């Protein structure tokens, strides 16, 4: 087994950190289940359409898998996670992120879990790619790696543009095991999902990207691959950050994706393994996406488990079930060990883009770590996986040199926080980068607005000029025709005109005469 592994080339990228592997137990690869809570909170992020998006009303009964919203071109429809009664619909409940507005739908479950009728497809090759994409759109599949990008749109863009499909089984964070767990349990279904995607977008070869430490899985996949010439397995070195699509494509092909472009433009279609599984479920079983695997990572006890959770389960309930009741002693984050956001509201529910819940014991910080000034040591440069210069970016962003920061490619930063961990003088580099990115985006939108306004103004001016010339020409035409007609109709028109005037004069004279006569009679 090891012998075959050694022959294969291991793909690598510059920078990154080798992580200590935790002792993996069998528990990591078994899916655990939790019971259904009484209340589900479904969060819908919306952009432009507001109340028109909703398909349901308060006090309406819903079945499991019934769509709650209409999707539009940007967002996919969201489905009810269980059967029950809709209790409440709230607008603008901003608990996660300030700028994002969302709708919160509360569903009380009746514990019956009645499904809607599912439309199963046995032979997907009878359907055209467009209709399959429509099915995927209707079942609400989004990128489950954390991108939340509608995968039906991704497939739409990829038709006739892509030559390889890359199945991303590399964890973005070192200690999350959700994807491996999924691979371990549903490997066959994932292969069917790959075939469906290859049928839709007509790819020529499929790469399965996996990290080197999962030896058992690799041998399993190799056995399955043997008779299929489409598939190929690529083994990555175990390093942090490897999950990003940019890094995977760079280390596979040596090509960089420029900022603002997607991997589709180069010819590679990347899907997370959970998304592939969801697509298989959507097409063949007809199921909408209402559940996903979330891994729970506890720092102290090394309690790392994977749970199959319905989307919309409140995190409070999830923690209570695991007997982590005293929430004041714990800090709860969403995301892995490196990339995480602190969770403020425990009533926030599990949504489609959460793949890990991190629990840490709360420690009172006696001393704040002192931030020294940058000493140009260059550790961050060695470590950066996308070949940026973090120390330079830091200086530019600190002193508000926006143009210089842009010219040194700050928008390519993937916020992996490695430079921050390595930095000897404890500078919160990623905080600066995040702020700078927001400012850059604002400048960008400003410039776009200005251009748009100016273009419209110019168009209007051109239009007005055009109208003036048209009117001028029309006037000339009118005069010409008049001149033409004048010679022909001269006499007749004049005669009529004279006649009319004479008749009017006569009438007036008669009126005057009669009135004078009446005046005389009165006297």
């Amino acid at each position, binding site marked *: 087994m090891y012998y075959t592994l050694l022959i294969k080339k291991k793909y690598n990228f510059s920078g990154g950190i080798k992580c200590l592997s935790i002792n993996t137990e069998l528990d990591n690869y078994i899916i655990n289940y939790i019971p259904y809570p009484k209340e589900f909170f479904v969060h819908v992020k919306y952009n432009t359409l507001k109340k028109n998006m909703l398909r349901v009303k308060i006090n309406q009964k819903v079945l499991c898998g019934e769509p709650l919203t209409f999707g539009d071109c940007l967002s996919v429809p969201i489905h009810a996670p269980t059967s029950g009664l809709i209790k409440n619909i709230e607008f603008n409940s901003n608990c996660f992120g300030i700028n994002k507005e969302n709708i919160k739908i509360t569903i009380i479950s009746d514990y019956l879990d009645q499904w809607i009728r599912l439309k199963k497809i046995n032979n997907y090759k009878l359907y055209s790619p467009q209709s399959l994409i429509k099915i995927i759109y209707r079942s609400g599949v989004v990128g489950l790696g954390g991108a939340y990008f509608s995968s039906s749109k991704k497939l739409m863009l990829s038709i006739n543009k892509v030559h390889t499909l890359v199945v991303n089984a590399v964890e973005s964070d070192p200690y999350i095991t959700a994807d491996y767990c999924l691979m371990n349990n549903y490997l066959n279904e994932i292969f069917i999902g790959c075939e469906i995607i290859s049928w839709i977008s007509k790819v020529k070869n499929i790469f399965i990207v996996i990290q080197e430490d999962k030896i058992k899985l690799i041998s399993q996949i190799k056995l399955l691959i043997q008779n299929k010439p489409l598939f190929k397995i690529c083994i990555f070195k175990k390093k942090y950050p490897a999950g990003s699509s940019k890094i995977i494509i760079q280390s596979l092909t040596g090509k960089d994706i420029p900022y603002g472009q997607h991997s589709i433009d180069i010819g590679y279609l990347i899907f997370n393994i959970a998304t592939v599984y969801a697509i298989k479920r959507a097409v063949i079983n007809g199921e909408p996406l209402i559940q996903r695997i979330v891994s729970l990572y506890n720092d102290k006890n090394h309690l790392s488990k994977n749970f199959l959770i319905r989307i919309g389960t409140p995190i409070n309930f999830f923690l209570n079930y695991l007997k982590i009741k005293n929430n004041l002693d714990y800090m709860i984050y969403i995301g892995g060990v490196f990339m995480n956001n602190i969770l403020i509201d425990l009533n926030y529910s599990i949504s489609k883009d959460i793949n890990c819940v991190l629990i840490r014991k709360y420690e009172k910080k006696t001393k704040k770590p002192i931030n020294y000034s940058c000493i140009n040591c260059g550790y961050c440069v060695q470590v950066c996986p996308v070949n940026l210069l973090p120390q330079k970016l830091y200086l530019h962003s600190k002193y508000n040199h926006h143009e210089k920061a842009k010219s040194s490619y700050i928008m390519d930063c993937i916020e992996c926080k490695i430079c921050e961990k390595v930095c000897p003088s404890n500078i919160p580099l990623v905080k600066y980068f995040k702020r700078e990115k927001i400012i850059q985006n604002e400048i960008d939108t400003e410039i776009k*607005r200005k251009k748009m*306004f*100016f273009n419209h*103004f110019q*168009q209007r001016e051109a239009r007005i000029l055009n109208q003036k010339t048209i009117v001028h020409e029309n006037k000339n035409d009118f005069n010409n025709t008049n001149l033409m007609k004048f010679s022909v109709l001269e006499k007749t028109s004049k005669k009529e005109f004279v006649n009319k005037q004479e008749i009017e004069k006569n009438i007036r004279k008669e009126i005057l005469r009669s009135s004078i006569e009446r005046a005389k009679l009165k006297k």
Partner: protein
Amino acid sequence: MIIILIFSLVSFLLGLILAYTHYLFPVKTDPIINKINNELPQSQCAQCGYPGCYPYAKAIINKNEKINKCIPGGSELIFKITKLLNLDKNIEDINIQNKSLVYTTVKIDEKNCVGCSKCAIFCPVDAIIGAPNFMHTVVQKFCTGCNICLLHCPTNCIKIIKE
């Protein structure tokens, strides 16, 4: 052959003459005016008293116009222009009225619109659509928030929405 030669010679000579005249009477474009014009918000709202953004930028340089006349630009724009023109002393003299730059858009109350089409004539970016004697609407994407149409509506059916 001879004809081609003659024509090429003539065109060459004409080109020389054109280049020489351009050298003698150059088109005067001030780079500072273009820079200020790039800083201005380009909403063409004419609230500064000039017909557009470029004439205002011209007036700042040529006619010593005040910098604080651009209303949608706000105080940020004043600082930018002072930086461009090195007007450090005058920062204190400028009275800053509108501190934050907030983009607004305008909405027509479509039930009360009588279709006089007065607002559509004055819109500088053609954001208002509608035929005369019919209902008019604002295309929210194109609206710059200059609020010129507010003054010209006879029935007061245009309202400001804040973004």
